């Protein structure tokens, strides 16, 4: 009997005006946006490739180990077309330096701040706004509408139990709503395939599959919200108005309100405070280095040149000076490294403050299934803050690798090859140096075995715990709304 009701309901839904308009709009919007989003991704990928190539070209020019200061770039995320999340707002690159911390600004200082006035646009936005409205529209008159028409009496006068009616309606609603969601996904993926630079790996497909699943669960939550109001009210128009108010609260009020509440409950430190701390640490390290290298001289007969990554290196210098340089670097580099570690800690602390605030806001906002859905989509797409932290950690690891490499090649920064290409036999006192000739003679280092930076998206298995809890929560909300509408329908007055 459930099947019969579901079939009737489904066929009725298919013929309605709202269903036709909703589906068409969903598909058309996807068809319009997908190429734009894919093109945008393609452009970012080109930029990224260009940057990486330029970085590699510079690496091939490096002549002394001191000048190895490459930049690590964050590859753009393919799945950002589905859930943009923070993809464009967060830092894209980090310069890896021996003494300095690889600075990844959390805010995109390199980007254009003026563009932040526009809200983000991605497939999630279309699904969350258009589809949730469609779900409400499909659901609002399932019970109250049938009562108004008088058909509810007829149905219930049969031998069918009330729960069967409700289950049938739920089933029909879900099947109806699967159509636009699926067509939007298929449309989007087909268009994506058309772009040659967009390549989806196996893990990406798993993620997209999960996104599809999550979208379905989300749509069913919105359907259940509509169903609940339909079971509570006697008139269809009132259940629609109530459902829409709930929708506005979910879409606009809760996400914004939670931000303010979180800001209020857990205020964050000004960024300047962290900057000041970092400045102090730098100054401290500088003083320490100055103390250590007081006795060493820096002037003398020497010649500099600009090397790779705009770093300075020594082309020639007299022997005494070279010994002093060797001592200086052996003493100063460990201090710089220690300072860099401390600065990383300070920045980490600031970032974790931001994380906590964000977490609080998200927790509050999870009353709204729409926020929950949004955060799930960005987590699945790998564009949420946790994924950014993953990038940060990778950069830190890579920095350590590079430092380890330099350390092993230069015997703890004490070999002359760290800062110059002068040969031992050039040390003779009073020799006349030919700057141009020496500069020409100097050859780039062979850096084949220097570790290169690579950062794929976070492994899905690592992100799984936080994704699973969110999905369970979404399912739970689903169950609650359905139970409520079930209780309401059991007591529904059919007259």
């Amino acid at each position, binding site marked *: 009997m459930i099947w019969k009701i579901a079939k009737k309901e489904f066929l009725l839904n298919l013929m309605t*005006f*709202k269903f036709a*308009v*909703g589906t068409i*709009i969903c598909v058309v919007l996807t068809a319009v*946006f997908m190429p*734009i*989003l894919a*093109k*945008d991704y393609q*452009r970012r990928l080109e930029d990224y490739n260009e*940057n990486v190539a330029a970085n590699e070209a510079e690496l091939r020019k490096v002549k002394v180990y001191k000048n190895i200061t490459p930049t690590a770039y964050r590859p753009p995320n393919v799945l950002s077309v589905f859930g943009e999340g*923070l993809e464009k*707002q*967060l830092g894209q690159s980090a310069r890896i330096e021996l003494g300095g911390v690889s600075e990844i600004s*959390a*805010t995109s200082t*390199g980007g*254009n*701040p*003026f*563009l*932040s*006035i*526009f*809200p*983000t*646009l991605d497939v999630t*936005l279309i699904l969350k*706004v*258009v589809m949730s*409205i469609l779900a409400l*529209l499909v659901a609002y*008159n399932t019970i109250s509408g049938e009562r108004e028409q008088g058909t509810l009496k007829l149905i219930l006068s049969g031998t069918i139990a009330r729960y069967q009616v409700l289950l049938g309606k739920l089933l029909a609603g879900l099947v109806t709503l699967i159509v636009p969601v699926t067509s939007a996904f298929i449309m989007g993926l087909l268009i994506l395939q058309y772009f040659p630079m967009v390549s989806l790996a196996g893990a990406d497909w798993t993620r997209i599959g999960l996104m599809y699943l999550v979208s379905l669960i989300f749509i069913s939550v919105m359907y259940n919200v509509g169903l609940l109001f339909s079971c509570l009210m006697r008139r269809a*128009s*009132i259940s*629609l*108005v*109530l459902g*829409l*108010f709930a929708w*506005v*609260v979910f879409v*606009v009020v809760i*996400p*914004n*309100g939670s*931000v*303010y509440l979180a*800001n*209020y409950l857990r*205020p*964050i430190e*000004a*960024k*300047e405070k962290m900057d000041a701390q970092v400045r102090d640490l730098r100054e401290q390290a500088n003083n320490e280095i100055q103390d250590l290298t007081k006795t060493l001289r820096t002037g003398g007969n020497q010649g500099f040149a600009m090397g790779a990554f705009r770093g300075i290196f020594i082309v020639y210098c007299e022997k005494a000076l070279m010994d002093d340089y060797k001592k200086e670097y052996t003493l100063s580099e460990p201090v710089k490294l220690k300072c860099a570690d401390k600065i990383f800690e300070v920045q980490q602390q600031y970032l974790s403050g*931001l994380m906590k*605030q*964000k977490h609080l806001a998200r927790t509050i906002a999870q009353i709204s299934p729409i926020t929950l859905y949004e955060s799930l989509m960005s987590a699945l797409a790998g564009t949420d*803050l946790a994924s950014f932290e993953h990038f940060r950690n990778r950069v830190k690891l890579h920095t350590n690798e590079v430092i380890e490499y330099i350390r092993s090649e230069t015997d703890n920064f004490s070999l002359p090859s760290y800062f110059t290409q002068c040969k031992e036999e050039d040390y003779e006192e009073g020799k006349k140096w030919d700057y141009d000739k020496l500069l020409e003679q100097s050859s780039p280092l062979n850096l084949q075995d220097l570790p290169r930076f690579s950062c794929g998206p976070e492994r899905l298995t690592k992100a799984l715990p936080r994704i699973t809890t969110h999905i369970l929560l979404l399912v739970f909300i689903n169950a609650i709304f359905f139970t409520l509408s079930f209780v309401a329908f059991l007591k529904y007055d059919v007259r």
Partner: protein
Amino acid sequence: MIRQIIYREILENLLSLRFILSLLLAISLFAAAGFVFVAKYRQESQDYWKDTNENLSSLSEQTNRLCDVARYRQTVYRKPKSLALCTEGFEKYLPNSFRFSVFSMYIPQVRGRGNFDLGRFSDMDLVFIISLILSFIALIFTYDTICGEKEAGTLRLILAASIHRHKILLGKYIGVMLTLGIPLLLGLLVNLLIVISSRDVIISSVDWLKIFTIVLLSLLYLSIFVLLGMFVSSRTAHSANSMVILLLVWVGLVILIPSFGRIVSDAARESPTQAQLQRRLTEADQKIRDDSRSGKFGRNAGMFSSDPEKCNPPATARWYNALREAYNQVYEDHLNKMIVPATFGRSFTRLSPTVLYQCASESIAGTGINRFNSLYQQVKRYQQDLKEYIRSKDAEDPESLHLLCDHGQAIRDWGVISKKPVSFDTVPKFRERDLALGQSLKLAIWDIGLLALFNLVFFAAAFVSFLRYDVR
């Protein structure tokens, strides 16, 4: 007769569930916005005064020598505005600190305690609430004005009486606008009461006038949606269909089109990157170096030597100022190139009345990108004033070479600027000036005109559709 229709419409609306719900929603949101604004304003004022006083006290430390005042890098911060209550204009994303000395102007930066990760939409200010929630409520009130009455059968009865159709339409329009005015005005009242009673926020008389203008603007904006609702309602036979169409149109106008901005500006105009800036700085540096070598600034420009014959202070000053000027030019170009895509995207999204309304109220409240631009210009003007001041003070000192140039060594060795102390009181200080109401209205005139045009179009459409409406 028209009065009777208005009266009936209001009474019917007042007793409905949707009215109670809208009233509750509007008042609670406006109240929340009031509390949020007061807390934020307090925090921002604190930060602002702390930073500004720090800047001024450092400036006063420089007054022992005139050359130090000239070389000192000041930072001017954006002052929190009480009218940000109405619309914040995304100011938390816009650069808010301007660093400059008499000779250089850097790119303004975003500083302060902001969590980049939060706040997807915009700020929960009055304009935001009105543009999203109240426009939605306007549709909820109007989606069944015509077709609902047809379904209930009452439309026939009304038309059976000797009343013109346009009078019915007008009466309904006025009735809905008046009902809609209740949540709007009550909410505003609650909001303003909260803000005023906090005593932190001072609203001057000009500000009151501006708030009043924004309220008028809000009514103009809401009337678009009322007319849209009536138009669609008189085009459809069933209120359910009219609701579906209206909702989709609303989503398009209020949520989707404003989101296009980013994509449009990304696609059409490329934002300059940090790497480009660095490259252009290097190029500028190289060009000045070449010019100097070719003797454009005079012999021995930039030479410092123990041999006074080899030094040429005027040439060095010319060279150094040219360098500074070139850098400033690069920075300003970079800034302009960043602003252009944003304004371009904005003008594209003006297809949506929501964006028009936001832009117009930003102009009137004096917030947003317009304010940033005017603040930047004011800082530059102040920089010129300060330069004039330095020049005039410098002229009084016979020991100085009267070559305004901030090269450290040139000042130390040759004394190109006076090293005499000056009184801190005579040093000009920066003060931001707001635009007068007339000027802000002039900025907003196009947006207001377009809003009025939207009104006219929808009114005409609703009128024509209702004249031909099939009552059966």
